[in-house]
């Protein structure tokens, strides 16, 4: 009783601290904790809660110190341990969390709770070996089956990590452990059988797995629907037992004639049997049939008959399924690909496609279905087919639009339109005809809009396609001509649709792309917000905006964007551990490995890397207005987040590049290549940025004599000077830039629904990489001269020539461009953004040079005074650098002016006549709105650019020699 009441008192005393922590009143919590500790100075749990409050108040040094003291006392009561666990999770010291529980478990080896927590602590660390040992000792003290299987799963995870020992040691051990358990008659849950199957699969023992499935243990697998059959098919496929597979797929299709994967499997097994000339009589393979099962189909004729029968059965049903018809087309396609003439006996493909259209033209998926098979027709065949279905849909000539009877008619009409585009019949149209077609499509949209059923979302989505295809046509023209007026026209169409149907995400996505072409990022951001992209979508859809954000100088928005992205990744990568733990707890063993892989997928996401590096660069670009600030930023970067160094091989492309609809056959054929090219470019650009951060950071550290971390850039076993390390990272950047120079000389043209290019090519072509390298090299040179006390007359000239002169030329070119070509404003904007960024980097490098030159100069001046050689001149390097700082300030001023000058230049003639005071028609209203959005966006760009340059001017002016 005495102990119990003691516990109660403790609980009561801690309660206010917990409450404050829960409410986020950390100061209050700290006070409460101190109050308790005054009464009871050795109260461990109160101490830990105090640490938690301190940590949350940002006093992590104090917090760590107190926490270490408690840790060393090796507490073993659960409340204290739990509080410690929270602390360690928040400060990412999962190793210490495990250590704390490990200490406690030694003192209280019988405590199930502590041992379980220790197991989970190792799960967090991904320490599979210790997981295994802990689970086994847990099982020994508390013989509960789940603990035993935790140990087995931990062994399976070790097998995943060590392919060498996987099949010789880990998996056989895991198998033996399960078998022993089975022999003891202890296996009773589904999770255990599922884990047994995982082990057998990993070992490639499919035969045995099949036996388990068919036996008593298999009977326990009940919750997951179709698991039996799915597993059976998987194992038989692995063992290439095609006759049985064929029989099973056939049987499944009799039950469900709309299951695609069964048709796939049926055809695959069929062709294996046909190709090997298999018959039941010559069968060497094991071919067992259950009672009542029919034979396998091992001839094409039999398969045709089977499919025809499926169609006949289907036709009589109340709601015919698409499956059998598509299967017939698929069989035709596969036979034709294999050059097997029997395809002719299936039927005439044009007729099959037509009858498919007849049956399913009221479904939205009709286009997608048919698009897979129109390639079976030749050029003339396609035209005939389109003409035929065109007549059915009263598609008519483009000079006459049909009166839509109802939405079914619209759907038919749309399918014909989609297929027409897909078959490439739009490509040969002249620009004038395309413009005409755009107008017709827009009229079709308006007409269909009138007869739609207002609350049915699918209706709206259907008719939006008219506008989308119209805009795709306009973008075809834009690709040929680069004429900005068609982009404006496209935006006008889409904004009009958007007003009527603000829900269709395809319209929003396309608008983002079009505004990007204009360089009006503000409008992109607005549309992106309306998409309500959140959570994982930040990883999969962030690419829609992230390349254009900094390209067009929306620096402030970029910061917010990357901060949100980073929060998502940091939070969820941490959280993933909790779900891996859950998977163990609920015995969902198939999910353990899946979750671990998914976590890696997030950690190695391209977007995560981009967000980290971009954020670091933005810090250096935006806020630095003095060299002290730059030093501060870099030291914070180094100590808090570390300098980013990605594992380029492991990097994942999680972008959902297929999200935008395309009706182009060409695009669908090349989408894979586009994705690959874009990913490669993204990685290369990320590497440029990542190395740039490292170079800048190294330069700053070198000038302030802080040791530069090696980060594996040189061997680790020798003492390297800062100069060595700095030179090495500069070399890395230069050689990477050279590789990029050759690999990305010519970029692939991406279509409007594809990804956007990075800034890489402009960065290289417009010599920003060269400027950066020149500046870094000159800095190193100064450092070496300073070390050796050598005066070099050419130092300043070299620096100036390689940086200032090039930038001056860039600015002049940008100004010329603006004067010459009224359509080049997005490009000019992107150009001056690059100049702005380069000036920012140069400011830091100048700061570094200044820091090295200043003491050198004072030193010389002192010497001179001592020797009394008043007449000896100081080396010109000092005056040259003063000139360089001044020139950069001058360039910054010019760029600021240029950024503001772009705004009036981009007014387009047809928009100039519109004034807000006039009474506007709807069309004018929309045009005015678009115009305002674009102008505002350019103003924002100018504003962000000028803000940065103002700081750079201040930075550069503070450097005096």
């Amino acid at each position: 009783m005495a102990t119990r009441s003691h516990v109660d008192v403790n609980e009561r005393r801690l309660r206010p601290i917990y409450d404050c922590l829960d409410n986020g009143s950390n100061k209050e919590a700290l006070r409460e904790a101190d109050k308790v500790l005054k009464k009871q100075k050795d109260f461990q749990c109160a101490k830990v809660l105090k640490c938690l409050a301190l940590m949350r108040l940002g006093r992590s040094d104090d917090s760590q110190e107190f926490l270490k003291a408690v840790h060393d006392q090796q507490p073993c009561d659960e409340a204290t341990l739990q509080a410690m666990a929270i602390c360690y999770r928040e400060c990412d010291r999962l190793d210490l969390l495990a250590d704390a529980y490990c200490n406690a478990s030694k003192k209280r080896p019988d405590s199930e709770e502590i041992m379980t927590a220790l197991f989970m602590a190792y799960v967090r660390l991904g320490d599979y070996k210790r997981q295994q040992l802990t689970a086994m000792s847990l099982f020994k003290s508390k013989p509960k089956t789940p603990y035993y299987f935790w140990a087995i799963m931990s062994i399976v995870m070790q097998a995943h990590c060590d392919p060498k020992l996987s099949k010789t040691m880990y998996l056989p051990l895991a198998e033996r452990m399960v078998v022993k358990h089975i022999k003891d008659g202890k296996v009773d849950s589904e999770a255990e059988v599922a884990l047994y199957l995982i082990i057998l699969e990993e070992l490639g023992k499919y035969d045995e797995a099949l036996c388990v499935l068919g036996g008593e243990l298999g009977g326990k697998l009940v919750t997951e629907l179709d698991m039996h059959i799915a597993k059976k098919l998987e194992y038989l496929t692995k063992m290439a037992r095609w006759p049985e597979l064929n029989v099973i797929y056939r049987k499944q299709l009799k039950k469900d004639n709309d299951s695609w994967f069964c048709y796939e499997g049926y055809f695959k097994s069929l062709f294996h049997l046909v190709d090997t000339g298999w018959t039941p009589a010559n069968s060497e393979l094991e071919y067992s049939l259950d009672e009542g099962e029919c034979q396998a189909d091992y001839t094409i004729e039999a398969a045709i008959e089977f499919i025809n029968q499926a169609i006949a059965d289907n036709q009589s049903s109340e709601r015919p399924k698409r499956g059998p018809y598509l299967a017939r087309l698929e069989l035709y396609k596969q036979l034709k690909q294999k050059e097997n003439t029997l395809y002719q006996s299936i039927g005439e493909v044009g007729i099959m496609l037509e009858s498919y259209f007849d049956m399913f033209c009221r479904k939205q998926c009709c286009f997608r279905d048919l698009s897979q098979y129109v390639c079976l027709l030749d050029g003339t065949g396609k035209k005939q087919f389109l003409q035929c279905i065109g007549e059915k849909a009263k598609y008519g000539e483009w000079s006459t639009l049909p009166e839509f009877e109802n939405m079914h008619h619209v759907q038919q009409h749309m399918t014909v339109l989609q297929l027409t585009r897909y078959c490439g019949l739009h490509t040969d149209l002249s620009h004038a005809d395309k413009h005409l077609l755009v107008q017709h499509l827009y009229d079709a949209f308006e007409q269909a809009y009138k007869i739609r059923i207002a609350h049915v979302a699918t209706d709206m989505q259907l008719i939006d396609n008219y506008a989308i295809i119209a805009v795709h046509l306009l973008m075809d023209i834009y690709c040929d001509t680069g004429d900005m007026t068609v982009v404006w026209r496209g935006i006008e169409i889409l904004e009009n649709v958007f007003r009527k149907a603000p829900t269709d995400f395809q319209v929003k996505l396309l608008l983002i792309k079009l505004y990007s072409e204009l360089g009006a990022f503000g409008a992109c951001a607005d549309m992106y917000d309306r998409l309500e992209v959140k959570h994982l979508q930040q990883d999969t859809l962030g690419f829609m905006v992230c390349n254009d954000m900094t390209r067009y100088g929306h620096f402030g928005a970029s910061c917010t964007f990357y901060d949100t992205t980073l929060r998502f990744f940091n939070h969820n990568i941490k959280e993933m551990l909790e779900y891996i733990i859950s998977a163990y707890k609920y015995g969902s063993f198939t999910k353990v490995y899946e979750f671990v892989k998914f976590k890696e997928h997030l950690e190695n996401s391209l977007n995560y890397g981009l967000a980290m590096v971009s954020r670091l660069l933005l810090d250096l670009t935006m806020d630095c207005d003095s060299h002290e600030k730059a030093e501060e930023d870099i030291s914070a970067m180094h100590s808090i987040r570390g300098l980013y160094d990605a594992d380029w091989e492991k990097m994942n492309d999680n972008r959902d590049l297929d999200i935008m609809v395309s009706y182009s056959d060409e695009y669908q054929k090349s989408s894979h290549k586009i994705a690959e090219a874009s990913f490669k470019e993204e990685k290369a650009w990320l590497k440029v940025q990542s190395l740039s951060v490292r170079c800048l950071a190294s330069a700053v550290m070198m000038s302030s004599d802080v040791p530069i971390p090696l980060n594996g850039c040189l061997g680790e076993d020798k003492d390297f000077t800062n100069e060595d390390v700095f030179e090495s990272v500069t070399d890395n950047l230069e050689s990477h830039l050279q590789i990029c120079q050759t690999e990305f000389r010519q970029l692939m043209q991406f279509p409007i629904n594809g990804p956007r290019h990075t800034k890489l090519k402009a960065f290289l072509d417009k010599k920003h990489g060269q400027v950066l390298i020149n500046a870094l090299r000159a800095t190193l040179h100064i450092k070496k001269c300073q070390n050796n006390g050598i005066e070099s007359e050419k130092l300043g000239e070299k620096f100036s020539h390689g940086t200032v002169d090039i930038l001056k030329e860039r600015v002049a070119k940008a100004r010329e461009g603006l004067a010459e070509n009224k359509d080049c404003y997005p490009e000019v904007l992107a150009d001056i953004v690059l100049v702005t960024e380069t000036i920012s980097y140069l400011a830091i490098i100048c700061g570094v040079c200044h820091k090295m030159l200043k003491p050198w100069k004072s030193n010389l001046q002192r010497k001179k005074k001592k020797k009394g050689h008043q007449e000896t001149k100081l080396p010109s390097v000092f005056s040259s650098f003063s000139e360089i700082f001044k020139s950069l300030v001058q360039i910054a001023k010019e760029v600021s002016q240029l950024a503001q000058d772009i705004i009036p230049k981009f007014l387009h003639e047809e928009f100039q006549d519109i004034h807000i005071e006039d009474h506007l028609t709807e069309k004018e209203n929309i045009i005015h709105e678009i115009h305002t959005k674009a102008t505002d966006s350019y103003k924002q760009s100018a504003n962000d650019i000028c803000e940065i340059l103002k700081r750079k001017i201040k930075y550069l002016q503070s450097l005096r020699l």
Partner: protein
Amino acid sequence: MTTIRPFTCDDMFKFNNVNLDPLTETYGLSFYLQYMARWPEYFQVAKDPSGNIMGYIMGKAEGMGENWHGHVTALSVAPEYRRLGLAEKLMKRLEEISENKKCYFVDLFVRVSNEVAVTMYKKLGYSVYRRVIEYYSGDVDEDAYDMRKALSRDMNKTSVIPLKDPVRPEELD
């Protein structure tokens, strides 16, 4: 033409075409992971022949005693694949799983304004059990129908006898 299989983590990288639809909510990762860890059998995805996600269903089994039931947490089909009977197919599977688990009934919540969905559920044998006031929060809060369908274990169909008075979300068990 469909392939239905268990939903896996990687499917989340590709479910935008379903989730960008305004009536479908995208939840935090933890939400999906919790379902995958705990009720993996109840989380199914339907794919088309090219591997595009057509729709998915997520659900769970919960409740004590005669309240042991299957619950439909989310059901969504991408616009392009609607009117193909896919939702029905996914619902039937969820009911079958719940039958295997010996549940008494299956229930779900739906916005009272979502006529299309309410009609579909009625066609599948669901009926309104009660109305939940302001269940959905938003610019304007909206009521939900709590709809139920009895399974074979509930022989007298007592689980679906409608309640007369609406309830508030906090009164839900």
